[in-house]
Protein backbone atom coordinates (compact mmCIF):
# COMPACT_ATOMS: atom_id res chain seq x y z
CA UNK A 1 0.00 0.00 0.00
CA UNK A 2 1.06 3.56 -0.65
CA UNK A 3 2.60 5.51 2.23
CA UNK A 4 2.20 9.19 3.04
CA UNK A 5 5.32 11.04 4.12
CA UNK A 6 4.74 13.31 7.10
CA UNK A 7 7.17 15.68 8.81
CA UNK A 8 6.76 17.13 12.29
CA UNK A 9 5.58 19.50 13.68
CA UNK A 10 2.07 18.27 12.99
CA UNK A 11 0.40 21.52 12.05
CA UNK A 12 -3.35 21.82 11.58
CA UNK A 13 -2.80 22.10 7.85
CA UNK A 14 -0.93 18.80 7.75
CA UNK A 15 -3.33 17.10 10.13
CA UNK A 16 -6.53 17.80 8.20
CA UNK A 17 -5.09 16.16 5.10
CA UNK A 18 -4.72 12.80 6.84
CA UNK A 19 -7.58 10.35 6.42
CA UNK A 20 -8.58 7.36 8.50
CA UNK A 21 -6.77 4.27 7.16
CA UNK A 22 -3.86 6.18 5.59
CA UNK A 23 -0.47 4.56 6.10
CA UNK A 24 1.99 7.23 7.15
CA UNK A 25 5.75 7.46 7.66
CA UNK A 26 6.61 10.15 10.22
CA UNK A 27 9.97 11.92 10.32
CA UNK A 28 11.01 14.46 12.93
CA UNK A 29 10.37 14.57 16.67
CA UNK A 30 8.11 12.51 18.94
CA UNK A 31 7.78 12.62 22.73
CA UNK A 32 7.03 9.54 24.78
CA UNK A 33 4.66 9.56 27.74
CA UNK A 34 2.80 6.74 29.43
CA UNK A 35 0.50 6.59 32.47
CA UNK A 36 2.89 7.95 35.10
CA UNK A 37 4.24 10.79 32.93
CA UNK A 38 0.68 11.78 32.02
CA UNK A 39 -0.24 12.05 35.68
CA UNK A 40 2.67 14.39 36.27
CA UNK A 41 1.97 16.51 33.21
CA UNK A 42 -1.68 16.93 34.21
CA UNK A 43 -0.47 17.96 37.62
CA UNK A 44 1.89 20.51 36.05
CA UNK A 45 -0.93 21.97 33.99
CA UNK A 46 -3.13 22.25 37.07
CA UNK A 47 -0.38 24.03 38.97
CA UNK A 48 0.40 26.19 35.94
CA UNK A 49 3.98 24.92 35.82
CA UNK A 50 5.91 24.48 32.59
CA UNK A 51 5.69 21.16 30.84
CA UNK A 52 8.70 19.08 29.79
CA UNK A 53 8.06 20.00 26.15
CA UNK A 54 5.94 22.37 24.09
CA UNK A 55 2.63 20.66 23.41
CA UNK A 56 1.53 22.81 20.48
CA UNK A 57 1.58 20.76 17.27
CA UNK A 58 3.55 18.02 18.95
CA UNK A 59 3.01 14.26 18.83
CA UNK A 60 3.02 12.05 21.92
CA UNK A 61 3.98 8.41 21.58
CA UNK A 62 2.52 6.10 24.24
CA UNK A 63 5.47 3.80 24.74
CA UNK A 64 8.09 2.55 27.17
CA UNK A 65 11.08 0.79 25.61
CA UNK A 66 13.27 -2.09 26.68
CA UNK A 67 16.78 -0.99 27.72
CA UNK A 68 19.02 -0.74 24.67
CA UNK A 69 21.96 -3.07 24.32
CA UNK A 70 25.35 -1.35 24.46
CA UNK A 71 26.08 0.15 21.06
CA UNK A 72 22.42 0.24 19.98
CA UNK A 73 20.44 3.46 19.75
CA UNK A 74 17.18 1.88 20.79
CA UNK A 75 15.70 -1.16 22.45
CA UNK A 76 12.36 -2.64 21.45
CA UNK A 77 10.03 0.35 21.22
CA UNK A 78 6.45 -0.43 20.19
CA UNK A 79 3.20 1.23 21.34
CA UNK A 80 1.25 0.55 24.50
CA UNK A 81 -2.54 0.46 24.91
CA UNK A 82 -3.83 4.01 24.51
CA UNK A 83 -7.09 3.73 26.41
CA UNK A 84 -5.26 3.91 29.72
CA UNK A 85 -4.39 7.50 28.84
CA UNK A 86 -7.98 8.45 27.87
CA UNK A 87 -8.85 10.11 31.14
CA UNK A 88 -5.73 12.28 30.95
CA UNK A 89 -5.85 13.21 27.27
CA UNK A 90 -8.30 16.11 27.02
CA UNK A 91 -6.24 18.66 29.01
CA UNK A 92 -3.28 17.94 26.70
CA UNK A 93 -5.36 18.27 23.54
CA UNK A 94 -6.73 21.54 24.83
CA UNK A 95 -3.15 22.79 25.22
CA UNK A 96 -2.45 22.16 21.56
CA UNK A 97 -1.30 18.54 21.41
CA UNK A 98 -1.93 17.56 17.79
CA UNK A 99 -1.02 13.91 17.50
CA UNK A 100 -0.97 10.73 19.56
CA UNK A 101 0.53 7.38 18.67
CA UNK A 102 -0.54 4.23 20.47
CA UNK A 103 -2.61 1.16 19.90
CA UNK A 104 -6.25 0.30 20.43
CA UNK A 105 -9.55 1.98 21.21
CA UNK A 106 -10.17 5.54 22.46
CA UNK A 107 -13.13 6.78 24.50
CA UNK A 108 -15.97 8.83 22.95
CA UNK A 109 -14.72 11.85 24.96
CA UNK A 110 -11.25 11.59 23.43
CA UNK A 111 -12.73 11.22 19.95
CA UNK A 112 -14.74 14.40 20.55
CA UNK A 113 -11.58 16.14 21.74
CA UNK A 114 -9.74 15.00 18.63
CA UNK A 115 -12.44 16.48 16.41
CA UNK A 116 -12.65 19.71 18.38
CA UNK A 117 -8.91 20.29 18.27
CA UNK A 118 -8.35 18.91 14.78
CA UNK A 119 -5.93 16.36 16.13
CA UNK A 120 -5.01 12.89 14.86
CA UNK A 121 -4.70 9.54 16.61
CA UNK A 122 -2.25 7.18 14.94
CA UNK A 123 -1.85 3.47 15.57
CA UNK A 124 1.57 1.88 15.50
CA UNK A 125 1.73 -1.89 15.26
CA UNK A 126 1.51 -3.52 18.67
CA UNK A 127 4.10 -6.22 19.08
CA UNK A 128 6.46 -4.91 16.41
CA UNK A 129 8.87 -3.10 18.71
CA UNK A 130 12.00 -4.51 17.10
CA UNK A 131 10.95 -3.31 13.64
CA UNK A 132 9.85 0.07 14.98
CA UNK A 133 13.23 0.56 16.66
CA UNK A 134 14.79 0.71 13.18
CA UNK A 135 13.14 4.07 12.56
CA UNK A 136 14.38 5.62 15.81
CA UNK A 137 17.54 7.61 15.20
CA UNK A 138 18.05 9.29 18.54
CA UNK A 139 16.71 9.13 22.10
CA UNK A 140 17.08 11.67 24.87
CA UNK A 141 15.44 11.49 28.30
CA UNK A 142 14.13 15.00 28.95
CA UNK A 143 12.01 14.61 32.09
CA UNK A 144 10.98 12.35 34.96
CA UNK A 145 14.14 10.28 34.80
CA UNK A 146 13.09 8.49 37.97
CA UNK A 147 10.22 6.82 36.08
CA UNK A 148 12.61 4.52 34.23
CA UNK A 149 10.92 3.13 31.13
CA UNK A 150 8.09 5.62 31.72
CA UNK A 151 10.32 8.72 31.65
CA UNK A 152 9.60 11.33 28.97
CA UNK A 153 11.88 10.74 26.00
CA UNK A 154 12.47 12.95 23.00
CA UNK A 155 12.82 10.76 19.94
CA UNK A 156 14.15 11.72 16.60
CA UNK A 157 12.59 9.45 14.05
CA UNK A 158 12.87 8.74 10.35
CA UNK A 159 10.02 7.05 8.47
CA UNK A 160 8.30 5.92 11.65
CA UNK A 161 5.43 3.68 10.43
CA UNK A 162 1.88 4.37 11.61
CA UNK A 163 -1.72 4.15 10.42
CA UNK A 164 -4.24 6.97 10.84
CA UNK A 165 -6.64 5.38 13.32
CA UNK A 166 -8.81 8.43 14.07
CA UNK A 167 -8.67 11.43 11.76
CA UNK A 168 -9.55 15.07 12.42
CA UNK A 169 -13.17 14.31 11.51
CA UNK A 170 -13.43 11.61 14.16
CA UNK A 171 -13.56 8.77 11.63
CA UNK A 172 -12.20 5.66 13.38
CA UNK A 173 -10.55 2.69 11.68
CA UNK A 174 -11.56 0.30 14.45
CA UNK A 175 -15.22 0.86 13.55
CA UNK A 176 -14.95 1.21 9.80
CA UNK A 177 -12.49 -1.67 9.43
CA UNK A 178 -14.56 -4.06 11.49
CA UNK A 179 -17.79 -3.17 9.69
CA UNK A 180 -16.20 -3.67 6.32
CA UNK A 181 -15.00 -7.22 7.02
CA UNK A 182 -17.72 -8.41 9.36
CA UNK A 183 -19.50 -11.57 8.16
CA UNK A 184 -22.58 -13.51 9.12
CA UNK A 185 -21.74 -16.68 10.97
Amino acid at each position, binding site marked *: *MEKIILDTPLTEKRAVNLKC*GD*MVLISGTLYTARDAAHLRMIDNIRQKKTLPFELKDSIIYY*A*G*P*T*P*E*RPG*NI*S*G*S*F*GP*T*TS*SRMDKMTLPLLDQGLRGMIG*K*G*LRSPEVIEGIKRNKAVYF*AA*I*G*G*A*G*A*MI*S*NSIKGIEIIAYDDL*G*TEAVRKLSVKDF*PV*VVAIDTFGEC*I*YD*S*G*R*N*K*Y*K*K*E*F
Partner: protein
Amino acid sequence: MREVSTLLIKEKIKKMFIEMNHELGNDVEAFLNKTREIEESPIGREVLENLLDNLAIAKEKQIPICQDTGMAVVFLQIGQEVALTDMFIEEAVNQGVREAYQEGYLRKSVVKEPLERVNTKDNTPAVIHYEIVPGNRIKISAMAKGFGSENMGKIKMLNPSDGKEGIVKFVVDTVSDAGPNPCPPVIVGVGVGGTMEKAAILSKKALLRPLGERNPNQTYGEIEKDILGRINASGIGPQGFGGSCTAMAVHMEYYPTHIAGLPVAVNINCHVARHRESVI
Protein backbone atom coordinates in the same frame (compact mmCIF):
# COMPACT_ATOMS: atom_id res chain seq x y z
CA MET B 1 14.66 -40.23 45.15
CA ARG B 2 16.37 -38.28 42.42
CA GLU B 3 18.18 -35.18 43.54
CA VAL B 4 17.86 -32.09 41.39
CA SER B 5 19.63 -28.85 42.17
CA THR B 6 17.41 -25.81 41.96
CA LEU B 7 20.42 -23.99 40.51
CA LEU B 8 19.82 -26.01 37.37
CA ILE B 9 16.21 -24.81 37.35
CA LYS B 10 17.41 -21.24 37.78
CA GLU B 11 19.72 -21.53 34.76
CA LYS B 12 16.98 -23.06 32.60
CA ILE B 13 14.54 -20.31 33.57
CA LYS B 14 17.05 -17.61 32.73
CA LYS B 15 17.78 -19.08 29.34
CA MET B 16 14.12 -19.62 28.52
CA PHE B 17 13.09 -16.04 29.24
CA ILE B 18 15.91 -14.51 27.25
CA GLU B 19 15.27 -16.82 24.32
CA MET B 20 11.50 -16.52 24.18
CA ASN B 21 11.67 -12.73 24.15
CA HIS B 22 13.74 -12.81 20.97
CA GLU B 23 12.36 -15.79 19.15
CA LEU B 24 8.86 -17.29 19.02
CA GLY B 25 7.97 -20.91 18.38
CA ASN B 26 7.83 -21.97 14.73
CA ASP B 27 4.08 -22.41 15.04
CA VAL B 28 3.34 -18.67 15.15
CA GLU B 29 5.72 -17.86 12.33
CA ALA B 30 4.24 -20.59 10.14
CA PHE B 31 0.78 -19.28 10.88
CA LEU B 32 1.68 -15.69 9.94
CA ASN B 33 3.31 -16.90 6.75
CA LYS B 34 0.25 -18.84 5.73
CA THR B 35 -2.22 -16.15 6.73
CA ARG B 36 -0.61 -13.25 4.93
CA GLU B 37 -1.62 -15.02 1.71
CA ILE B 38 -5.27 -15.39 2.69
CA GLU B 39 -6.03 -12.33 4.80
CA GLU B 40 -8.76 -10.39 2.99
CA SER B 41 -7.86 -6.84 3.91
CA PRO B 42 -4.87 -5.16 2.24
CA ILE B 43 -3.93 -3.29 5.41
CA GLY B 44 -4.27 -6.56 7.34
CA ARG B 45 -1.86 -8.27 4.95
CA GLU B 46 0.57 -5.41 5.38
CA VAL B 47 0.37 -5.80 9.17
CA LEU B 48 1.10 -9.53 8.94
CA GLU B 49 4.12 -8.80 6.71
CA ASN B 50 5.34 -6.33 9.30
CA LEU B 51 4.96 -8.88 12.07
CA LEU B 52 7.09 -11.33 10.11
CA ASP B 53 9.72 -8.64 9.46
CA ASN B 54 9.65 -7.83 13.16
CA LEU B 55 10.33 -11.45 14.09
CA ALA B 56 13.27 -11.59 11.71
CA ILE B 57 14.75 -8.33 13.03
CA ALA B 58 14.27 -9.39 16.65
CA LYS B 59 16.10 -12.63 16.08
CA GLU B 60 18.91 -11.18 14.01
CA LYS B 61 19.61 -8.07 16.05
CA GLN B 62 18.65 -9.57 19.41
CA ILE B 63 16.11 -6.83 20.12
CA PRO B 64 13.04 -8.09 22.01
CA ILE B 65 10.08 -8.88 19.75
CA CYS B 66 7.92 -6.59 21.85
CA GLN B 67 8.89 -3.90 24.35
CA ASP B 68 6.45 -5.36 26.87
CA THR B 69 8.61 -8.30 27.78
CA GLY B 70 5.90 -9.43 30.13
CA MET B 71 5.36 -10.68 33.62
CA ALA B 72 6.95 -14.08 34.15
CA VAL B 73 4.52 -16.97 34.62
CA VAL B 74 6.04 -20.33 35.48
CA PHE B 75 4.30 -23.70 35.72
CA LEU B 76 6.36 -26.30 37.56
CA GLN B 77 5.34 -29.94 37.40
CA ILE B 78 7.53 -31.66 39.93
CA GLY B 79 7.76 -35.44 40.08
CA GLN B 80 6.96 -36.92 43.46
CA GLU B 81 10.28 -38.74 43.47
CA VAL B 82 12.36 -35.60 43.10
CA ALA B 83 14.27 -34.13 46.02
CA LEU B 84 15.13 -30.48 45.39
CA THR B 85 18.51 -29.33 46.70
CA ASP B 86 20.36 -26.00 47.08
CA MET B 87 18.32 -22.79 46.92
CA PHE B 88 14.65 -22.62 47.89
CA ILE B 89 12.73 -23.34 44.69
CA GLU B 90 10.82 -20.06 44.68
CA GLU B 91 14.04 -18.10 45.06
CA ALA B 92 15.64 -20.12 42.29
CA VAL B 93 12.82 -19.30 39.87
CA ASN B 94 12.91 -15.62 40.79
CA GLN B 95 16.67 -15.51 40.52
CA GLY B 96 16.42 -17.00 37.02
CA VAL B 97 13.88 -14.33 36.06
CA ARG B 98 15.99 -11.59 37.65
CA GLU B 99 19.11 -12.59 35.72
CA ALA B 100 17.20 -12.97 32.46
CA TYR B 101 15.62 -9.52 32.67
CA GLN B 102 18.76 -7.78 33.85
CA GLU B 103 21.32 -9.48 31.65
CA GLY B 104 19.03 -9.91 28.65
CA TYR B 105 18.14 -6.18 28.35
CA LEU B 106 14.46 -6.91 28.92
CA ARG B 107 11.99 -4.41 30.32
CA LYS B 108 11.22 -4.50 34.01
CA SER B 109 7.46 -4.15 34.23
CA VAL B 110 6.60 -5.44 37.69
CA VAL B 111 5.56 -3.26 40.63
CA LYS B 112 5.96 -4.34 44.21
CA GLU B 113 2.46 -3.65 45.38
CA PRO B 114 -0.63 -2.88 43.27
CA LEU B 115 -1.49 0.53 44.73
CA GLU B 116 1.74 2.30 45.48
CA ARG B 117 3.23 0.77 42.32
CA VAL B 118 6.96 0.98 42.98
CA ASN B 119 8.91 -0.95 40.35
CA THR B 120 10.88 -3.93 41.67
CA LYS B 121 13.49 -3.14 38.99
CA ASP B 122 14.22 -6.78 38.17
CA ASN B 123 10.83 -8.01 36.93
CA THR B 124 10.38 -10.30 39.93
CA PRO B 125 8.49 -11.92 41.43
CA ALA B 126 7.21 -14.42 38.91
CA VAL B 127 3.75 -15.94 39.19
CA ILE B 128 4.49 -19.58 39.96
CA HIS B 129 2.11 -22.53 39.77
CA TYR B 130 3.31 -25.77 41.38
CA GLU B 131 1.97 -29.20 40.64
CA ILE B 132 3.15 -32.51 42.09
CA VAL B 133 3.05 -35.29 39.48
CA PRO B 134 4.13 -38.95 39.40
CA GLY B 135 7.72 -39.78 38.44
CA ASN B 136 11.17 -38.30 38.95
CA ARG B 137 11.27 -35.50 36.42
CA ILE B 138 10.55 -31.79 36.48
CA LYS B 139 8.73 -30.03 33.68
CA ILE B 140 9.10 -26.28 33.49
CA SER B 141 6.68 -24.30 31.34
CA ALA B 142 7.57 -20.63 31.26
CA MET B 143 5.72 -17.77 29.70
CA ALA B 144 6.37 -14.03 29.35
CA LYS B 145 2.89 -12.55 29.48
CA GLY B 146 2.23 -9.11 28.06
CA PHE B 147 -0.47 -7.07 29.72
CA GLY B 148 -2.11 -5.50 26.68
CA SER B 149 -3.64 -8.91 26.14
CA GLU B 150 -3.73 -9.97 29.81
CA ASN B 151 -5.92 -6.96 30.65
CA MET B 152 -8.55 -8.13 28.17
CA GLY B 153 -9.20 -11.43 29.98
CA LYS B 154 -12.48 -12.12 31.77
CA ILE B 155 -14.05 -14.68 34.04
CA LYS B 156 -17.73 -15.46 34.53
CA MET B 157 -19.62 -17.93 36.63
CA LEU B 158 -22.27 -19.18 34.21
CA ASN B 159 -25.31 -21.26 35.14
CA PRO B 160 -25.18 -24.92 34.17
CA SER B 161 -28.25 -24.30 31.99
CA ASP B 162 -26.30 -21.72 29.96
CA GLY B 163 -24.48 -24.71 28.46
CA LYS B 164 -22.46 -24.70 25.30
CA GLU B 165 -24.19 -21.62 23.86
CA GLY B 166 -23.48 -19.66 27.01
CA ILE B 167 -19.78 -20.51 26.83
CA VAL B 168 -19.53 -19.65 23.15
CA LYS B 169 -21.28 -16.33 23.62
CA PHE B 170 -19.17 -15.31 26.59
CA VAL B 171 -15.87 -16.11 24.85
CA VAL B 172 -16.83 -14.46 21.57
CA ASP B 173 -18.15 -11.34 23.34
CA THR B 174 -14.96 -11.07 25.39
CA VAL B 175 -12.74 -11.13 22.31
CA SER B 176 -15.08 -8.84 20.43
CA ASP B 177 -15.12 -6.25 23.22
CA ALA B 178 -11.33 -6.40 23.40
CA GLY B 179 -11.16 -5.42 19.71
CA PRO B 180 -7.72 -4.08 18.81
CA ASN B 181 -6.38 -3.81 22.38
CA PRO B 182 -4.79 -7.28 22.80
CA CYS B 183 -2.80 -6.92 19.54
CA PRO B 184 -4.62 -9.34 17.23
CA PRO B 185 -4.14 -11.88 15.77
CA VAL B 186 -4.58 -13.42 19.20
CA ILE B 187 -4.67 -16.84 20.81
CA VAL B 188 -7.68 -17.41 23.03
CA GLY B 189 -7.24 -19.62 26.10
CA VAL B 190 -10.46 -20.86 27.70
CA GLY B 191 -10.81 -22.68 31.01
CA VAL B 192 -14.15 -24.35 31.76
CA GLY B 193 -15.21 -25.94 35.03
CA GLY B 194 -13.52 -26.44 38.38
CA THR B 195 -13.86 -23.44 40.67
CA MET B 196 -13.29 -19.79 39.87
CA GLU B 197 -9.51 -19.90 40.26
CA LYS B 198 -9.22 -23.31 38.63
CA ALA B 199 -10.93 -22.03 35.48
CA ALA B 200 -8.55 -19.06 35.39
CA ILE B 201 -5.46 -21.25 35.71
CA LEU B 202 -6.75 -23.60 33.02
CA SER B 203 -7.30 -20.67 30.67
CA LYS B 204 -3.66 -19.67 31.13
CA LYS B 205 -2.43 -23.24 30.70
CA ALA B 206 -4.41 -23.54 27.48
CA LEU B 207 -2.14 -20.85 25.99
CA LEU B 208 0.85 -23.20 26.33
CA ARG B 209 -0.56 -25.70 23.84
CA PRO B 210 1.06 -25.87 20.38
CA LEU B 211 -0.82 -23.38 18.21
CA GLY B 212 -4.09 -24.72 16.84
CA GLU B 213 -3.90 -28.19 18.40
CA ARG B 214 -7.47 -29.25 19.16
CA ASN B 215 -8.70 -30.53 22.49
CA PRO B 216 -8.78 -34.35 22.12
CA ASN B 217 -12.29 -34.45 23.57
CA GLN B 218 -14.49 -34.12 20.50
CA THR B 219 -17.14 -31.94 22.14
CA TYR B 220 -14.55 -29.40 23.26
CA GLY B 221 -12.66 -29.64 19.98
CA GLU B 222 -15.89 -28.73 18.15
CA ILE B 223 -16.57 -25.79 20.46
CA GLU B 224 -13.03 -24.50 19.84
CA LYS B 225 -13.68 -24.61 16.12
CA ASP B 226 -17.05 -22.91 16.45
CA ILE B 227 -15.66 -20.09 18.58
CA LEU B 228 -12.70 -19.56 16.23
CA GLY B 229 -15.04 -19.28 13.25
CA ARG B 230 -17.20 -16.72 15.01
CA ILE B 231 -14.26 -14.62 16.18
CA ASN B 232 -12.81 -14.52 12.70
CA ALA B 233 -16.19 -13.48 11.29
CA SER B 234 -16.17 -10.46 13.62
CA GLY B 235 -14.17 -8.38 11.15
CA ILE B 236 -11.69 -7.11 13.78
CA GLY B 237 -8.67 -8.33 11.79
CA PRO B 238 -4.93 -7.89 12.34
CA GLN B 239 -4.35 -5.07 14.85
CA GLY B 240 -8.08 -4.36 14.72
CA PHE B 241 -7.77 -2.48 11.41
CA GLY B 242 -10.41 -4.76 9.88
CA GLY B 243 -9.95 -8.14 8.26
CA SER B 244 -10.52 -11.86 8.40
CA CYS B 245 -7.75 -12.93 10.76
CA THR B 246 -8.49 -11.94 14.35
CA ALA B 247 -7.60 -15.12 16.23
CA MET B 248 -4.97 -17.70 15.36
CA ALA B 249 -6.47 -20.37 17.60
CA VAL B 250 -8.86 -21.14 20.43
CA HIS B 251 -7.57 -23.59 23.04
CA MET B 252 -9.98 -24.94 25.66
CA GLU B 253 -9.24 -26.91 28.80
CA TYR B 254 -11.84 -28.33 31.17
CA TYR B 255 -12.07 -29.83 34.65
CA PRO B 256 -14.82 -31.47 36.72
CA THR B 257 -17.05 -28.92 38.42
CA HIS B 258 -19.87 -28.55 40.96
CA ILE B 259 -23.49 -29.47 40.19
CA ALA B 260 -24.45 -25.81 40.61
CA GLY B 261 -21.75 -24.18 38.51
CA LEU B 262 -20.23 -23.54 35.10
CA PRO B 263 -17.16 -21.31 35.56
CA VAL B 264 -15.64 -19.96 32.34
CA ALA B 265 -12.40 -18.01 32.12
CA VAL B 266 -10.93 -16.38 29.04
CA ASN B 267 -7.24 -15.51 28.87
CA ILE B 268 -6.08 -13.80 25.69
CA ASN B 269 -2.55 -13.90 24.35
CA CYS B 270 -1.26 -11.60 21.65
CA HIS B 271 0.56 -12.78 18.53
CA VAL B 272 3.78 -12.40 20.55
CA ALA B 273 3.02 -15.73 22.21
CA ARG B 274 6.21 -16.30 24.20
CA HIS B 275 6.58 -19.60 25.97
CA ARG B 276 9.12 -22.36 26.37
CA GLU B 277 9.18 -25.79 27.93
CA SER B 278 11.98 -27.77 29.43
CA VAL B 279 12.18 -31.15 31.13
CA ILE B 280 14.85 -31.95 33.70
